[in-house]
């Protein structure tokens, strides 16, 4: 096989795999996607909610699959706070199913703890309209924190998650 020399392999491995496009592209893309025929109104909403849920599910699955049993060493990086609130579209659990919902969030938190990415979890009492739950996590960087936030079951129920970097 026509192999590359080691120095070239190293140089290729160091090439950035992420580059920022022109900032105006985001609005162009959002307009293009919203303008799709048949995606207005509920169609637009439903499709992206579905993808968000799918992405969160995959991310959560990867979190669990990557390190299913052995506790990971405490991760380095930065501390972030996830502030959970219902938001206008929140899908509350049916009456009598609150414990089930809390258990689901607990399993998610446990998976983070196994990865050494959870510092603190808790609920605020009484529940408020602004914030009623929080998680303090450790993440490598903003993108890693965003991935963790996206894996939270709260996204599935259309709740709001505010992600804030914690300055120690």
């Amino acid at each position, binding site marked *: 096989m026509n192999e590359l020399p080691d120095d070239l392999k190293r140089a290729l491995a160091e090439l950035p795999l992420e580059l920022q*496009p022109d900032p105006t592209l985001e609005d162009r*893309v959002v307009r293009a996607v919203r303008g799709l025929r048949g995606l207005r109104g509920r169609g637009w909403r439903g499709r992206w909610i579905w993808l968000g849920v799918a992405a969160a599910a995959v991310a959560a699955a990867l979190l669990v699959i990557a390190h299913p049993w052995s506790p990971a060493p405490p991760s380095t990086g930065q501390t972030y706070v996830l502030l959970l609130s219902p938001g206008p579209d929140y899908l509350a659990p049916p009456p009598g199913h609150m414990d089930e919902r809390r258990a689901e969030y607990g399993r998610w938190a446990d998976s983070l703890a196994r990865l050494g990415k959870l510092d603190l979890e808790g609920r605020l009492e009484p529940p408020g309209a602004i914030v009623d739950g929080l998680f303090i996590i450790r993440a490598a960087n903003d993108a890693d924190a965003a991935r963790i936030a996206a894996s939270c079951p709260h996204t599935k129920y259309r709740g709001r998650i505010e992600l804030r970097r914690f300055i120690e």
Partner: protein
Amino acid sequence: MTSDDDLFRALYREHTPALYALGLRLTGRDQHEAEDLVQETWVRATRQMSTFRGESSLRTWLCGVLVNVRRERVRSAWRMVDAPDIEPPSPPRDDAAFDLERAIAALPNGARDIFVLHDVYGYAHHEIAEMLGVVEGTSKSQLARARTLLRRALSPPSGEVRP
């Protein structure tokens, strides 16, 4: 801003830098074409998202969509005639990285696609073959060709010693 906008924009911001970097390299660092690829990828992904089964990561799936979009655009004859202006790349980290990016950009289209997917992004030949609609043998031979051209492009002319 609606929560749907928030959700889409969050996904956009998480995955677009990877899509843009891939698009930029596949197009030989044509920034306008790379942005068009990214836009068309998100539009296509919105239409086809029911085909995303979670068997790969969302980013891998989106990259596959982008490669398909790129393949279709290259096949359009008018694009082959209307060659885009090549704009300077994003600020390089150093001269070596800049030379390497330029050398990759100068590879012929087919060889460049396969080289970028295999040697920069780590796709296997069978995955590349599926993405590009070619047989594995083509992927391997084009990769060998690209590596030869790249080594030649990065080697100093005989008799010249690079600092």
